[in-house]
């Protein structure tokens, strides 16, 4: 064994003994520290997990969505706009859609209703794969597909039929023909899918308008070019591309996570200040201990190495416990502590399973913002004490 390795093993042994002798105090510090790391890591993992899930699911959204705008607000778009897009090269399908919200007073829930001209959907559409059961036909027959949470919320039991109110309070009978795959929960939790005809009937919309158009293109690389052409043809519309929608979700999760991270950072800074205050105010006993160690032959570097090992053991254990706790929190409890912050406080929460996503860069980030400040807060004061002559430390 090399002398350096033996020296550090001796120091580690001394550090572990010292930590064990002050186990109550150190366990307290470690628990508080682990809790802070748990909060930070939970947020990081949950955000990454949600972005990951949304990226997978958003591959199913249309390549382009067109909405008519008037005075900066969205309004119904005429059906004849469709004809003005016919000769744009690269457009595979133009699918009219009615998209709206239905408030269920009985359950106090707000559902998203999406009505499509389903037979106009391109063959490449993944809609069929997202649905368990049948996809509603294009007729006015009340066939619908429900998201898992809506299904549970309606308390249908074994029934497959129920009714929703039209604007004139007459009842529209509906029939559940399928349900959305639970894997798509983040996007379909509160969704009711029906034919365009049924949607028009439910919302009592005039036959010549829809809420927006879904555009599917042959070559995804041309989405931007085609969107620009559409915008030029239909200047009174807003043209949203799939990458833009994906980016929006990332920004929403990123913004919410960032906002929460700032709050957590405050807690982290408070902890660092506490650690610094505790460590920089070395007690006379601790200063004397450093002096005694120097008297019997320890060097400044030995004192620093000792403090380094002590800090590393405490903060490393806290890091491990915090990160593992955060992983379990996201994996087994779907990040339930923070999910409302990231997903919003809507009435219906998606009950999807989020697989925590954590990369080396995330771990490095958390390590840098937690372990490193703690080690600095404990090692630097020890260095300040250990560079003074031992005579001064033991007087």
């Amino acid at each position, binding site marked *: 064994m090399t002398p350096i390795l033996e020296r550090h093993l001796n120091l580690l042994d001394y550090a572990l003994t010292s930590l064990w002798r002050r186990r109550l105090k150190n366990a307290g510090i470690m628990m508080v520290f682990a809790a802070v790391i748990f909060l930070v890591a939970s947020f990081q993992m949950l955000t990454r997990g949600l972005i990951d899930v949304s990226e997978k699911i958003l591959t199913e959204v249309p390549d382009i969505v067109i909405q008519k705008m008037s005075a900066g607000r969205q309004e119904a778009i005429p059906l004849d706009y469709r004809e003005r897009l016919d000769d744009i090269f690269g457009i595979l399908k133009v699918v009219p859609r009615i998209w709206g919200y239905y408030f269920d007073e009985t359950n106090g829930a707000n559902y998203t209703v999406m009505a499509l001209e389903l037979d106009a959907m391109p063959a490449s559409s993944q809609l069929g794969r997202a649905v368990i059961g049948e996809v509603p036909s294009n007729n006015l027959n009340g066939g619908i597909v429900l998201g898992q949470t809506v299904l549970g919320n309606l308390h249908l039991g074994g029934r497959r039929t129920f009714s929703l109110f039209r604007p004139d309070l007459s009842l529209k009978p509906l029939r559940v023909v399928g349900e959305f795959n639970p894997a798509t929960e983040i996007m379909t939790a509160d969704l009711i899918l029906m034919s365009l005809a049924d949607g028009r009937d439910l919302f009592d919309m005039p036959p010549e308008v829809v809420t927006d158009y879904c555009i599917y293109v042959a070559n995804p690389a041309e989405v931007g070019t085609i969107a620009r052409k559409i915008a030029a043809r239909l200047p009174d519309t807003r043209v949203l591309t799939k990458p833009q929608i994906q980016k929006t979700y990332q920004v929403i999760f990123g913004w919410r996570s960032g906002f929460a991270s700032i709050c957590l950072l405050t807690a982290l800074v408070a902890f660092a200040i506490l650690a610094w205050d505790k460590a920089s105010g070395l007690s006379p006993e601790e200063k004397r201990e450093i002096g005694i160690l120097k008297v019997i*032959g320890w060097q400044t570097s030995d004192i620093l190495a000792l403090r380094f090992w002590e800090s590393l053991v405490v903060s490393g254990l806290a890091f491990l416990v915090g990160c593992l706790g955060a992983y379990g929190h996201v994996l087994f409890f779907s990040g339930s502590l923070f999910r409302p912050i990231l997903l919003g406080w809507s009435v219906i929460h998606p009950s999807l399973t989020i697989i925590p996503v954590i990369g080396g860069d995330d771990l490095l980030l958390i390590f840098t913002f937690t372990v490193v400040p703690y080690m600095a807060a404990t090692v630097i004061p020890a260095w300040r004490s250990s560079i003074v*002559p031992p005579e001064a430390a033991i007087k």
Partner: protein
Amino acid sequence: MIIECKNLMKVYQTEGKDFRAVDDVSMKVEKGEFVIILGHSGSGKTTLLSLIGGLARPDAGAVIIHGLDQNRQAESELAELRNRTIGFIFQFSSLIPTLTALENVLLPLTFSKVPPSPGSYDQACTLLEQVGLSGKEKSFPAQLSGGQQRRVAIARAFINQPDIILADEPTGDLDEETEGEILRIFREKNQIAKTTFLVVTHNGVLGKTQHKPRTFMMKNGVLSENSSEVASSI
């Protein structure tokens, strides 16, 4: 010659004024000598001991141990000197509170070039037995009396079999029986192992317990070799 002090000077600032704690002190100590430095409280004897032990740097002059000038030694060399060549005994409790008596005694070996071995363990137990602490090996400092803590520190000073023992009021608050036992150990180490002792005390009787001690007197930072009559008058 094992210790040589040349024109040592240590000045402290007190209320904006210079205070010469050690003032132009020169002395030579041969291997195996038992040197007693007498003086009142505040006379500078503890500061002199710190300078000789390399615990503080002098403002002027030099301390030469085994022919090596401490001023020219790096921190690591001074640490090695404190670890291997010098054993310290202080007037206050100088134990690590979180270690047992036995661990405290073994502590200097942790970073010694001769690492702890089963023989070291036996040696530490023997030393604790010699200072009357047999059976207290696993006691923590808080479980020991002030005198017992002092004796653990004495045992620790001898664990590396140092050439020099620097002791500051080593029997200050010990009962007569323990004091006699400690002084007997000092005499044995001095006579048999030829360990050099440099003891600062205000106890003039200490010299009578040792074989041919050299006695110095320190007053206002100035050191002078003294006769036994003066020493006994302290």
